[in-house]
Each structure stands twice: as C-alpha cells, then as structure tokens.
C-alpha cells in the first residue's frame, strides 16, 4: 500500500483484482440483504393501511416505529452500501489503478452495517432523535455513519490520487463530491446546539432534501457516467455537459430544501427562494438526462439487454421524478398535493425508480465484469419487469389517490372521507409494493449467482474502450 512505484504500474496484480472483486461483491451482498429487509418492512407498512389490525397490538410492530426503519434502512443501508460498492469499482477501474485500501473498505462496510443494525434496533424500541425525517437515528449512531462516510471518502480520494490516467474521470467527481458533501450534511444535522423550534424546521428542510440530492443523486449520476459508456461501448455524449451538470447540481440543490415546508411558519422568502431554485433544478436534471439518453441512442441491440434496461429506467426515473419534484414545488400545486400521499409516490419514483434502478443496472452491468459470472438472463428479466410494473402501479396509485385526497380536503369533506376514499389506492399500493418486494428476492438470488455461480469466461472478455476521457 505504501509502494507508490507499484501503484504507478498500469498492470494490476491478480491480488489487486481479487481484492477489488471481493469488496464490490460483499458490498453488493450486504446491500441486497438490506434491500430485502427494508422493503419487507415496507410491505408490512403498506398492508397496515389496508388492514390496520395487521401485525399490530405491540409497540415494536406499530406503524410509527416501523416507518423510519423502512426509510432509514433503504437510505443508509441498501442505497448507501450499494452505491459505495459500485463507486469503489468505478474509482479503481476508471483510474486504471487498484483500490487504495481494501482494509478501509472493510472498516467502512462494518461501520455502515453497525449503524444500520443499531439504528434499526433503536428505532424499534422507540429510541429516536425526534421524528425528524431521515435523521431519526440518535446522534451516536449518526456518528458511526459519519465515520463510515469519512473512511469511504479517504479511500475513494486515495484511489483516484493514484490514478494511471491523465484526468480524473467524471464519475469520480460525482462520487467523491457526494461523499464529502454528505459528511458536511451529517455534521449540520447532528450538531444540536442551534436547532430549536422553528430553527429546527429550517434545518429539517435543508437536511431532508440535501441528504437525498447531495448523497444519492451524485453517487448514482457518477455511476451512470461510467456504466452507460461501458454497456454501450462508446464515450459519454458530452463530457462538458456532465461537468456543467455537476456544478449546477451542486449550487442549486442545497437551496431547495424549504420547499418541504411551504405554507409553514418558515419565513415566506425562504420558501420562495426554495421554489425558484426548484425550477432551476431542471437545468442539471435535463442536462444530465439528455447526456445519458443521447449516449444510449441508436444502440437498440445493447439497450434491450437486462443491465441496460435497468439503467434506462433509472435515467427515466431521474428525469421524470426530478421534473415532477419541480412541478410539486409550486405553491399552487402544493395546495393540492402537500401532506397527501402524492409525496410518497414521488419519493418512491425517485429513490426507487431512479436510485434503486441505477444500483441494479450498475450491479448487473459491472459486477460480472470482475467476477466473470453472469446472472441468469430470464431471472434478470423477471426481476426487471416485476420491479418496473410494481413501481408503476405503486406510483400511479399514490399519485391518483394523493390527488383525490387533496381535492377532498379542498372540497371541505369531513376528514374521515379522505381516509375512506384512499382505501382502493392504498390497496393498489400494497399490491405494487408486494411485486417490488418479490423482485428483490430475485435480485438477491441473482447476486448469489454473480458471486458463486458458474463462470462464463467469454461473456466479458472484450475490453471496452472510451470510458476514460
């Protein structure tokens, strides 16, 4: 590890490759297990809306304790671990070097898992830092997560610092940036001494959106800048556009958080600024999406294969979900949709349709390149269709239902009517959610095959060109 001369050699030793493979592999397995767990909780929650007596009568089964377990584990266990695993692979491969330190990667993985396990247990016991969304974990657990981020940042930066390429490939801008910015978000969120009452509302608005938009978004975007050129064997359509999207995303995103608290007692100007920059977010979103779609254009023979299809849905999820976010940020739209289930549909379109599909595309597309083991095409296809159809049902049900809910309130119906009118939509949501969950079991199975299955030497022998600029 201290031997810089060795690292400078473009050729990697078999040990280096094995270390990178094991890291990528074990991160993916952990992530997949967390996905299954977190979405199992999600399915239970969905059914509680339909059958409130389902798995009830005990504190540790009550909705209000399970909901943060579902959200925090999908965020900080499934998505975080899954994205970091791929980011390590991307960093090492796009820099034509080895992973700086497998040991640091293991420490990071351990910390991510410790935080998630401790967080899950604490939340189920009713121990939380307030029901502040996505930062419910008590501060000692959040410190463990922060430590995992710091270790990851160190490892990624050190890997890219030892690159054998001229420039730093764009993917690493996004992933390294994402990890570093999230360290700042974590500190801002944990430090309690300046967050009281309305001040805490302002911090909640800031945190809620930044945790999503400056952690998951850049990580996933960075992976797309590597995975799409790999899968389509051509360089990214416009490197400059990617750089442009990087900086605009960085500058616009931190400002939009307060749109979660429109019509609240937060200062009106703070809300208005958030709306303005929510519109500005269309710039990086459309720039990024166009860049990905134009790279994929005209290669149907590669597009209609499973890993690329996951990527395509991920890109569309990014485009549609983020544009929808802009539409939702207007006061006129919030008057209908704010506080309704529409928001829950939106968060699934983004965290699932965008982030989760990108992770799947990254794993299916990249993991076999280093393990030499492919997942079964049919099972991958079933995973794809169940997840996609399930998600469409889920999002449509809550989007329509949420609109009905909002209009019921505007029309002055008794509140309970809005609950009764949601019943069919909540049932469809549970059906869509169950399909999504079933597909996750297949994903776990497929990950197993990409790890321990039969080797298929010919499939990925072809070295792709054009990834590094």
């Amino acid at each position, binding site marked *: 590890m201290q031997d810089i001369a060795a690292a400078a050699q473009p050729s990697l030793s078999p040990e280096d490759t094995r270390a990178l493979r094991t890291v990528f592999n074990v991160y993916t397995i952990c992530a997949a297990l967390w996905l299954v767990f977190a979405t199992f909780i999600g399915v239970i929650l969905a059914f509680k809306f339909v059958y409130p007596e389902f798995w009830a009568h005990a504190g540790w089964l009550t909705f209000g304790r399970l909901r943060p377990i579902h959200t925090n584990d999908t965020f900080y266990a499934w998505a975080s671990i899954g994205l970091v695993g791929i980011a390590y692979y991307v960093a090492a491969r796009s820099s034509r070097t080895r992973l700086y330190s497998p040991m640091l990667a293991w420490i990071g993985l351990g910390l991510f898992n410790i935080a998630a396990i401790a967080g899950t247990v604490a939340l189920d016991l009713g121990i939380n830092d307030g029901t502040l969304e996505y930062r419910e974990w008590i501060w000692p657990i959040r410190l463990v997560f922060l430590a995992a981020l710091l270790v990851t940042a160190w490892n990624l930066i050190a890997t890219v610092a030892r690159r054998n390429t001229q420039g730093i490939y764009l993917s690493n801008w996004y992933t390294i940036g994402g990890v570093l910015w999230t360290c700042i978000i974590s500190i801002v969120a944990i430090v309690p001494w*300046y967050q009281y009452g309305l001040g*805490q509302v302002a911090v909640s608005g800031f945190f809620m959106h930044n945790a999503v938009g400056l952690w998951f978004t850049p990580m996933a975007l960075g992976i797309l800048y590597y995975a799409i050129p790999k899968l389509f064997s051509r360089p990214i359509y416009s490197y400059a556009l990617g750089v442009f999207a*990087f*900086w605009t995303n960085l500058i616009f995103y931190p400002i939009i958080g307060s749109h979660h608290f429109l019509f609240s007692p937060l200062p009106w100007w703070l809300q208005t600024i958030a709306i303005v920059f929510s519109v500005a977010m269309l710039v990086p979103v459309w720039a990024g999406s166009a860049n990905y779609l134009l790279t994929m254009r005209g290669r149907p023979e590669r597009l209609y294969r499973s890993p690329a299809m996951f990527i395509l849905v991920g890109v569309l999820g990014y485009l549609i979900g983020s544009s929808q976010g802009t539409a939702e940020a207007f006061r006129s739209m919030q008057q209908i949709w704010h506080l309704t289930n529409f928001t829950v549909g939106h968060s699934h379109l983004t965290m699932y349709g965008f982030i989760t599909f990108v992770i799947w595309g990254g794993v299916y597309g990249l993991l076999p390149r280093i393990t030499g083991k492919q997942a079964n095409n049919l099972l991958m296809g079933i995973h794809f269709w169940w997840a996609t159809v399930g998600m469409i049902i889920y999002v449509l049900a809550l989007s329509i239902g949420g609109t009905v809910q909002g209009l019921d309130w505007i029309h002055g119906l008794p509140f309970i009517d809005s609950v009764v009118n949601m019943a069919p939509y909540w049932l469809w949501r549970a059906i869509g959610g169950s399909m999504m969950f079933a597909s996750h079991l297949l994903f776990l199975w497929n990950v197993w095959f990409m790890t321990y299955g039969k080797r298929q030497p010919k499939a990925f022998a072809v070295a792709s060109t054009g990834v590094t600029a």
Partner: protein
Amino acid sequence: MKALLLIAGGSTLVYAMLAVLMGVIPGIELSKTPPGPGVEPLTPLEAEGREVYVANGCSYCHTQQVRPLPEDAVFGRPTAAGDLAYQTPELLGSERNGPDLSDIGARQPSAVWQYMHLYDPRSVVPQSIMPDFSFLFRVVAQAPAGVTPVPVPKPYAPAHGVVIPTHKAVALVAYLLSLKQPPIPGYQPPSAAAPSAAPPSAAPGAAPAFDAAEGAKLFSANCAVCHQASGEGIAGVFPPLKGNAVVLAADPTQQIHVILEGLQGANVGDTVYPGQMPAFKSVLSDAQIANIIDHERTSWGNHSPLATPADVAAERAKLKHQE
C-alpha cells in the same frame, strides 16, 4: 493532485458555504424566534407525553401545522412562528393520513374519548385506519382505587377484566389535551370561508332551507366521533341523540345552547355521561349549526321542528349579552 484538490476541495468548499447559508444560519436565526402570546412551555407530565408521541412516530401521520389555506381552517388558525418556541424536536410532519393535531385539545377535549381512541381507534371511529395503542394500556381484573377504567365498548373490550391506562398513556393524553392554539390578539380569520359556507343567512327574514347534505357532512366532521353516525352515541360514555329529549323538544333553544357552549356531565335519560363536549361557538357559523341541528332532528327516526340560523343567531346574541 492539483485537479483532485480542485474538484474535491473546491466543490466541498462551495457546498460548505451553501450549507452554512441555507442550513446553519437560518437554523441559528430562527431558533431565536420568541414564543407567541399565550404560548407556554409544557408541564413535566405533558412533556413526558410528548416523548411518547415522538417515540411512537405519531407525527408520520399527524401534522402539527395549520396552513393559511381555506381547507386547513377546520384544524384551527394558521400556525404562527411563535407557536413553535418550545417545540423541540419539531413535529410539523409531512403527511396527513390522520387529522392535524395543532388544536386537538380544544377540538376534542374529552379525555375519555382520547383514551378509548388510543386503546382502539375503531371503537369510536369505525372507518379509522390508525394503529391501536393498546400496548400503552393494561388489562386488569379490577381497577385499583382512584383509577377509572377506560369504558371500552363491548365488541372492542377484552373478554375478561377492565382496561386501565399506563403512565405513558396518561402522559400522552395530557399532552394531546395540552395542544390548544392560544388566540392571537387581533387575528381575524379570513372572512372568505364564512360567507361561502353560510350564504342562506345572508338573506334576512327569508327562512333558509335546511340543506340535508350539508347537515350530514357537518355532523360527520364535527359530531360523529362521539355521537356516532348512527346517532346512538356510545353506551355510558357519549349520549345518544336518537330519541334524545333535547333533540325531540319542539323548542330548539337548549340544543342550540349545548352546541354553542359545549357540555360536561350530560344527564340524558337518567344517565350521567362522563364525556366532555367542546363549545362550537367560535368554530361553526349560525347556518352550519342550524344544519347540524336539523340533521339531528330529521335523522334516526327523530321528527321534530327544524331550527333556523336566525334561532341560532338569537341564542348566540343572548349568550353574548349574558357575558
């Protein structure tokens, strides 16, 4: 190395500045917001109840922010910055699967109802999808001295024994009952909602017709959680309106009076009811109250003469005069 420093370091510096600007500074400045008039810190028991509320994630379905929008007026006046002075952690919430609770202590002041509803929400609101919080209660053979058992209706009650609240349930109910929005001196609710809700009373002299659909809607929104959609109330807890002497009386004055002023310890048919009814004089207009009364007077087999908004206005004026 230079490039790495520029990208990683430069972007992180930019982000740190934005985080201070959009997160830290608003946090520091807004934390200094002084409490509004009449906004008091919680008592120790209420504060404990708030912890139970937080631990069990009530705010994932119940907001505590009334927006300055017409549809939110049913939950109280718009939440003001000064209301949040003692609210850490903040409980504004992001989803309203259940009603807003900013003013629940005023809208539903009956502790008995709160206990029944927490033990099994469907015992008072059959369509409710709220989880039951029976784990905050204990079932015992006999209530200890000084503890009133929760009057759970038969179909929802345990087969043997009686239900008594644990300390956590007592604290939680104390917290819920403490949620009352203090009035803001000089604040007038936007008058837009009232005239549209009460156009008939605008024509003086002409007796406005009873709007049956409106009456049913208002009854469902304001009365049904206790008196039930069937008008039968809950035996021993909330009095029935079906066959109720006050509702059947030809003169609606007493019925109007009860709705305007609220009631405690109602004595109906020789039964004294423990439930507490809130006053609706500052919540409902004359026309709305007349519609509710007429709904009660024409439903569940009740047939008694209808009341008019003018009757309500007269009683309201009389009460004001007495003050």
